[in-house]
């Protein structure tokens, strides 16, 4: 795929992974080194426990992420919209796939294999730097989102304990007010989702709205040029 056609995807990726310092043209150049692959509805993109062979950058369609719980049942962790990056954790540390991914509708991806991934991480070049910054921002989001969710869980459990001490009637009233964050999910489900966030399977940015957006320097320059032109 040519770099120019990948510019919009690169720009969206930089925005959704809140990359502070990278240009979309550099990231597009990095992505162009991958190969195109496609899946039909309900196709298995990869299975939990498989060796990690590539990072998939979802260009088109949706991907359903499933993880086995302690009883061996598949639980849905997230449905990811394009553009999204999946499977990068295994590439970073050589671990196996920590969840299964299934295509929802027709899905198009750019696969960046191990060799290209290593090359990009090791390069002293603009595409290399943009790709490293994408990975770094993703890892940072994973850690921050998980930490925030753990903190919410601890706070909710503290409230739950306090509620147990008040009368049943008061407790019911309080539950209606305080359980908004958990959406009625059990601690086990919430912990499973936190584990999913850590693995990079759910990129919602809940609780990290304090990230400074610089996003795309190309866009910034275009905006500045437009302003100058009046």
């Amino acid at each position, binding site marked *: 795929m040519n770099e120019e056609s990948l510019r919009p995807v690169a720009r969206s990726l930089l925005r959704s992974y*809140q990359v*502070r*310092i990278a240009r979309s043209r*550099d990231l597009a150049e990095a992505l162009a080194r991958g190969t195109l692959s496609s899946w039909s509805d309900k196709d298995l993109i990869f299975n939990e426990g498989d060796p990690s062979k590539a990072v998939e950058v979802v260009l088109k369609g949706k991907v359903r992420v499933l993880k086995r*719980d*302690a*009883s061996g049942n598949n639980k849905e962790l997230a449905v990811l919209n394009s553009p999204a990056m999946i499977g990068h*954790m295994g590439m*970073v*540390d050589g*671990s196996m796939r920590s969840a299964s991914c299934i295509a929802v509708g027709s899905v198009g991806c750019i696969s960046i294999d191990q060799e290209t991934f290593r090359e990009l*991480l*090791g*390069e*002293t*070049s*603009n595409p*290399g*730097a943009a790709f*490293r*910054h994408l*990975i*770094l*921002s993703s*890892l*940072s989001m*994973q*850690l*921050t989102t*998980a*930490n925030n969710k*753990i*903190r919410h*869980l*601890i706070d909710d*459990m*503290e409230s*739950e*304990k306090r509620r*147990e001490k008040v009368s049943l009637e008061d407790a019911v009233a309080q539950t209606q007010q305080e359980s908004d964050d958990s959406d009625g999910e*059990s*601690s*086990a489900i919430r*912990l*499973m989702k*936190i*584990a999913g966030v*850590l*693995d990079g399977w759910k990129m919602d940015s809940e609780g*990290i709205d*304090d*990230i*400074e957006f610089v996003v795309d320097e190309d866009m910034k320059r275009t905006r500045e040029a437009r302003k100058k032109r009046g």
Partner: protein
Amino acid sequence: MPMRGLGVLTTERVRNTMVIRELSKLHMFKKVPKSDLARLTELSTASNYGIGDCICRQGEQATNAMLLVSGRLEVSIQTDSSVKHIGVIHPGEIFGEQGLFHSKGKRNATVLANRPSQCLTLTPDIMRLSHDNEAIGALERHLIATMARRIRSTNKAIQLVWKDAQQEEDRKNAKKVNDNSSQEEKSGSILTKLRSLFGGK
């Protein structure tokens, strides 16, 4: 006056040369040219700490990351009633890296020097130059590995607590008994584990 200015310049140059020497001993910079290390040293600030000095405190605003060049540091977190030591930082390790990505982030732990130590302060601006500086590229690769390790260890801790929570829930479902006392026991034990792993009120 000119002589004094020259003196400051020479002191700075000597200090930078010593920092470069220490940096080149670190594994991540083994293949990095000295000129790139010199540029990294110019762009960052080296600070020295004595035993017991505080490098950063839990709850403080985080605007940068630190690289321990030499010495040894101790990491602790404040829980509801006590201070818990959670690890030691060795030369070549980066800490406080969330400060590179979040403009209003806070320090999650307190870091004290337990040996005379030297740290390099890394600001987000340094990363803008990683496309033509091998030292900064090496630093970023090291950061990726560090964060991946941190994610894995947090995940491991979460998986353990999750497993316990799952088993408790399965047990409860099997019995189909809505017993208030067992519920209290469940949330209490999971909460205690989470607190001991991640701190809390």
